[in-house]
């Protein structure tokens, strides 16, 4: 199936083995007029993550790690297949998080071959085929695997054991590091030193510093990257029975009405509000500062969204991207903490 939409995070659907990518308004017009879209075939890239994930490491950490290694332009011109045992071990929600952020390294789309996890997720849902139609569809979906020995234009393999909880320190998603690491002293090879300095100045973060214990002001758990039911469950499990730090404003924004309803049925909203989070209406919210949910100038926001660009969450806002687990822990602690280590009082 091919899905296009006027949003670069359309690639989220790649988790189901679809070819899904974002297009501009003029191309939307083209689709409406003709049901067709003129495209050049992109180059192919396979990114494999092999092995078992470390404690405290979730899908968001994997994709932030990949982008930090490949850079924000590393995937430009490519369509990506994510593969390997660590990717296969993820739930559909986790796979959507991975595919969602493909554009953050410049790739138009990313996809994961459908498997038993995919089929189990789809079966019985609204609009899913039933009966004989299901059997036919299933037989076809099972063929949507990359052939043994297929050659990709580019191929990368990472070891899951090397991935730790990740955060970003700069103003693009490629400027990420393990939460326990130090901010680099200088820009990466091939990147401009001026751009690197400008970015750190904006963030008010010193080159070479550690961000562990860095105080934060806002926490946003939401966006098309991380606002599915599993993300809310992960966060709820961590915050249950605790309180958001006094100086932190923390928001939970479900990705859709469906997720909001399910979260309420599971009592997650109560866990969040008891802990001092605001449980808000479903939508994009503070991901891009388009509505009133903005982060004020100079304030630090640990956000589960996808872009830490200058001003993305409001003019002058400083965004630190992280997983729902790391974000929830930061809300409670009032500062950046390493969720792979026992929580400090």
């Amino acid at each position, binding site marked *: 199936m091919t899905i296009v939409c*006027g*949003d*670069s995070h*359309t690639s989220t659907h790649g988790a189901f083995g679809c070819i899904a990518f*974002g*297009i*501009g*308004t*003029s*191309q939307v*017009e*083209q689709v409406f*007029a*003709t049901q067709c879209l*003129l495209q*050049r075939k992109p180059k192919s890239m396979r990114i494999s993550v092999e092995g078992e994930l470390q404690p405290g490491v979730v899908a968001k950490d994997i994709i932030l790690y990949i982008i930090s290694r490949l850079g*924000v*332009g590393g995937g*430009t*011109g490519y369509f990506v297949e994510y593969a390997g045992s660590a990717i296969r071990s993820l739930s559909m929600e986790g796979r959507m998080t991975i595919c969602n952020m493909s*554009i953050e390294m*410049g790739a*138009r789309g990313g996809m994961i071959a459908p498997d038993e996890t995919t089929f189990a997720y789809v079966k019985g849902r609204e609009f899913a085929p039933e009966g004989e139609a299901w059997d036919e569809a299933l037989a076809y979906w099972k063929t949507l695997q990359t052939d043994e020995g297929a050659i990709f234009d580019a191929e990368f393999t990472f070891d899951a054991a090397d991935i730790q909880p990740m955060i970003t320190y700069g103003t*693009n998603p*490629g400027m990420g590091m393990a939460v326990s690491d130090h901010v680099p002293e200088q820009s990466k090879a091939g*990147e*401009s030193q*001026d*751009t690197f300095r*400008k970015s750190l100045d904006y963030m008010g973060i010193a080159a070479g510093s550690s961000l562990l214990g860095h105080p934060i002001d806002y926490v946003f758990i939401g966006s098309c990257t991380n606002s599915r039911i599993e993300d809310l469950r992960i966060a709820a499990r961590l915050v249950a029975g605790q309180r958001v730090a006094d100086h932190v404003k923390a928001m939970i924004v479900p990705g859709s009405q469906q997720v909001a309803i399910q979260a309420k049925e599971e009592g997650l909203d109560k866990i969040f509000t008891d802990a001092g989070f605001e449980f808000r209406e479903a939508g994009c919210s503070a991901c*891009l*500062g*388009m509505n009133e949910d903005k982060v004020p*100038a100079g304030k630090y926001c640990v956000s589960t969204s996808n*872009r830490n*660009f*200058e*001003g*993305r969450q409001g*003019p*002058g806002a400083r965004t630190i991207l992280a997983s729902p687990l790391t974000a929830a822990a930061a809300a409670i602690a009032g500062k950046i903490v390493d969720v792979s280590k026992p929580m400090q009082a």
Partner: protein
Amino acid sequence: MKPFTTLQSTAVPLPIEDVDTDQIIPARFLKATTREGFGDNLFRDWRFHQDGTSKDDFVLNNPVYQGEILVAGKNFGCGSSREHAAWAIADYGFRVVVSSFFADIFRGNALNNGLLPVVVSPDFLHQIFEAIEANPVATFTVSLENQAFTIDDTAQTTSFEIDPYKKTCLINGYDDIDFLISQRAAIEVFELNSLVK
């Protein structure tokens, strides 16, 4: 769309890498239903303080630098698929953006709006920045027909790639729909023949 053939102009230097779509036009200015007027908020938070006064050190506020060519660092236009980024640049008055590397969706969006993205080598990009630094009113010539970009002062020239279909569209001032309409007779013949079979 205005046809594009040849342009001679001075240029505005923006030697910053990874300029993203939120810098080009922040999301809070996207609530409009036409393509006009976005130029007012181009690079909004780099150009203006929060109270709306100009930031004097930003290049667009420096009267020394003018022109219809924007020259930027690599990976220009990364981020969102919002076409408003291309609209804002075109609406401000730029007709060409030069960089050593463009984000995919932005490049496509620019081409669909009569804004020509010119990819040059990192070395040549550096030479363009040097030429502007040496002489802020240095002119550059962009020939779409010949796919050539020239630093007029030094006569250094480089060729650039463009999809032949998009080249045809730009030269004629067509967007994709205009192009389809220009092929209407052929489409109708095709449909008629298909129906007969």
